[in-house]
């Protein structure tokens, strides 16, 4: 068993377990914590694969940014009696069948896809410099599009979340 395999087994099982706990945890703050651990696990997988730049970006954007946002959302909208909103068993059944069948389908496709790819290539993945050059030459259009997209998101989210003045007598409807 190579070191890669041992490390992958450890990290992947921790990630999968955290993802399961996200789904089945009844306390939304604990779900956020387990999601954080899942994202850290995925970042470790990127480092294991040799994609260091993507791994560091995952940490700084997802863990340090998006998860902080999600936890803020959890805390700003959490009320004691609503912290544990229950799902009915029928919904669990339908969701379980859906997720289970999709998982079987995807595993089927993965087994077929991964067949001829067993030996890992010896050269390292392109590093940060090459990714940067790629973003400015081959992938310039997606780069510009997501720049504009981020600007739109910034303005839109700031507008949506602005402090509104509630009218004194009528019920507020945004």
């Amino acid at each position, binding site marked *: 068993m190579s070191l890669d395999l041992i490390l992958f087994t450890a990290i992947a099982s921790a990630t999968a377990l955290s993802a399961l706990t*996200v789904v089945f945890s009844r306390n939304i703050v604990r779900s956020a914590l387990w999601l954080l651990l899942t994202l850290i696990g995925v970042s470790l997988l990127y480092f294991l*694969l040799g*994609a260091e730049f*993507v791994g560091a970006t995952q940490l700084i*954007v997802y863990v340090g940014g998006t998860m902080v946002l999600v936890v803020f959302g959890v805390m700003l909208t959490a009320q004691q009696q609503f912290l544990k909103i229950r799902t009915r068993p029928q*919904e669990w059944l339908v969701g379980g069948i859906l997720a289970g069948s999709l998982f079987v389908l995807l595993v089927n496709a993965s087994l077929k896809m991964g067949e001829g790819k*067993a030996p890992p290539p010896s050269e390292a993945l392109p590093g940060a410099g090459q990714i940067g050059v*790629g973003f400015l030459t081959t992938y310039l259009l997606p780069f510009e599009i997501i720049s504009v997209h981020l600007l739109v998101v910034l303005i839109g989210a700031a507008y*949506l979340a602005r402090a509104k003045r509630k009218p004194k007598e009528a019920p507020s409807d945004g």
Partner: protein
Amino acid sequence: MVELGLTPYLILGAFLFACGLLCIATKRNAVGILMGVELVLNAANVNFVACARYVPSFGLEGQVFALLVIVLAAGEAAVALAIILNFYNNHATVDVDKADELKG
């Protein structure tokens, strides 16, 4: 010597995707649904980067796509949370089953 191939990564991606889908389908808390969406996006990213590693001609594209997905997911989480906050301000709850004003 059992070598680590592409298949375990793809299976992990599939598992994370199924977990994310289950999370979206069963959580009644709107922020919980957002967490499911993040799981789905991360599953796709794991697939991208694993294929970048094990398919030699895909090395740069896989990482570029993974970076694009990370950036877009962050933007989408921001907007989703703004919507959830608005919903909370108007209905005093984040239970999505209560979002039925247009029903019937």
